[in-house]
Structures are given as C-alpha cells and as structure tokens.
C-alpha cells in the first residue's frame, strides 16, 4: 500500500517536472525544468492549492534515494577516457582545490554573518534586501 502511494505521488511530481520543462522551453529561459517545477510546487503548497499529504511520501522517497539517480551519469565517465586523456590528474586537482575554496568561502561567510548578526539581524537584512 505504501509503495502504491509512493508511485502515484512520484508520478504526480513527474507531471509537475514535465510542466516545468515545457514552461522553460516555451519561454526559452536558461532555467531548467526541474527548478521551474520546484517553484511551481512551492507555490502550489504555499497557496494551499495542493496538500502536503498529496506529495509528501513521494518527495521524501525521491530525496532519500537521490544518490541513486546520479549513478548512471557517473558510470558515463568510462566514455570520456579519450577526451580527458592524460589530463585527468590536472582536472582532479582543479576540482578538489576549487571545491575546497568554494566550501571555505561559503561556510566562513555564512558563519561570520550568523555570528555577527545576532541581535542586529533585522538591520543588516533589510538594508540588503
């Protein structure tokens, strides 16, 4: 019974995704269907057009198994041995160093603001909105 519920809800979420893709194509915007669909679902929930219970089980399942959906593309690395060739060590260095840089910049900025912002949150956020 639980599986049937998940399947129906995932099908519903897929419809929202397809609608998002159509809108993104039609308007010719660089924002992909998934993100447009996310905004649509958020608005549907926020405006109480659909109930959380209608999608909750399906959405929680998709999010819990998220890594599964990355795997087929990751296996695709086998097809790029030629294009990447001898440069894979350099590529790996760039990706690792850049990831560390991005995490440090993001994490330290966020932590600095949240520590400093205690008590003065409203002032700083209003100014920058």
């Amino acid at each position: 019974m639980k599986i049937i519920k998940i399947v129906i809800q995932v099908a519903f979420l897929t419809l929202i995704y397809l609608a998002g893709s159509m809108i993104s194509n039609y308007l010719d915007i660089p924002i992909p269907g998934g993100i447009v669909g996310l905004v649509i679902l958020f608005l549907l929930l926020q405006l109480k057009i659909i109930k959380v219970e209608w999608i909750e089980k399906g959405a929680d399942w998709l999010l819990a198994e998220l890594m599964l959906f990355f795997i087929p593309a990751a296996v695709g690395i086998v097809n790029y041995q030629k294009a990447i060739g001898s440069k894979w060590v350099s590529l790996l260095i760039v990706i690792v160093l850049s990831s560390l840089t991005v995490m440090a910049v993001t994490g330290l900025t966020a932590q600095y603001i949240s520590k400093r912002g205690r008590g003065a949150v409203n002032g700083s956020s209003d100014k920058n909105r």
Partner: protein
Amino acid sequence: MVLLTKIVSILFTYLVYKISKQSYSRWNLFFLTPLLISPIVLIILLIATHTSYDSYYSGSKWLSFLLGPATVSFALPMYRQLKLLKKHLFEIIASITAGSAAAIISSFFYALWLQLGPSLTTSLVPRSITTPVAMDISKTIGGVPTLTAVFVIITGITGALVGPLWIRMLKIEKSTAKGLMLGMSAHGAGTSKAFELGELEGTFASIAMIVAALITIILAFTIFPVLQSELLI
C-alpha cells in the same frame, strides 16, 4: 532482448546502490558512499560483461530522469522550513553569492594555472551546480555539456567525501553554515550528505543548491565573459 538489457541495467544499478548504501550505513567508512563505490562496481561489471555504456544507459537513463522530479521535491523541505529560511535570508544570499563567484573564479584560475586549454576550462566553470543547469550554462558559454556533466558528478563526490572533514578543519559549528557550504559546493550529492548530518543542514543545503543555480546563471553571463575575453586565448 533489448527490453531485457534495459530492465537488467536498472535492476543492477538499484541492487548495487542498495548494497553499497547498506554497507555504508553499517560500517560508516567514507569510501563506501554509494556515489563513489556504485559507479566503480558498475563500470567493472560493464567491462567484465563486454557491455557498452550506451546499452547500459538505454535502460538506466530512466533513473537519471528521476533527477527531474527529485529536484521538484526540494520544494517540500523548503516549504516545511520557510520561517527559518526567511530568518536567515541575508546569510543565505550573501554566502551563496560569494560561493558562486568563488566557484567560477577559482575553477577558471586553477584551470589556467594547470594549462587545461579553453574547452576544458570553460566546461569546468559551471561544475558546482545541479547537472541540468550546469549543462545549459556550459553550452551557452562555449563548453562541452557532456564533459561538464562528468565534472559535476566528480565535484559532487568530492564535496560529499571531503566536506565533513573540511567542516571540522575550518571549525564551522553552525548547522546553517554547514548546510550552505555542502549545497553550494556539491549540489544534490552535498545535499544528500547534509541530510545525513541533520534535518537543518539538509534544508539549508537544499536552498543553497537552488540559490546557487540561479546566482551562477547570472554570474556566468556577467563575470565569466570578462574573464574569458581577458585571459583565455
């Protein structure tokens, strides 16, 4: 026969994923994370059975397709935690803008330093964000979308693997900051990791992933062309 290949490729992907996920939660060794070990096992299986990637992907692409509805599903944690997100709005926008700029600029300069050439460099630039957006941006700025997709995956695996250690070394204690840095640098894979740390971390990683995609679209069409025309010859 063709249909059978498709079904088998989906079943095996699911099976390998489930087994690695269970062993990961049982022994808690970082290299057992499904994102790293499952593709390796599957590649070995493909080579051992002389199966081409194309025939494997003809079936398993349906699993990739579910990334779309999964992206839509991120609306749910955002809806549940809306109050919290509003409260931290400035922290989110500021740190993700800084992070997105750091992603573009640092990929560009590290690639320049290691002399990777224009096409690989451009393909590396959008790699911190979720696959479909990254591929779109790559196409528009003159990269190779399929290569970008590969880099996005490697970035995701890297972030999920080194993220927790890097968080400790940088002494990041705030849950919000932990979530933001994982979602910013490693998109869905980082978000999945963040949910392992906690509900709050996961929620902030989800919002980071979404905001990062939007801000990177803007930056890729503003600051990147300047870098490109000045330095990439």
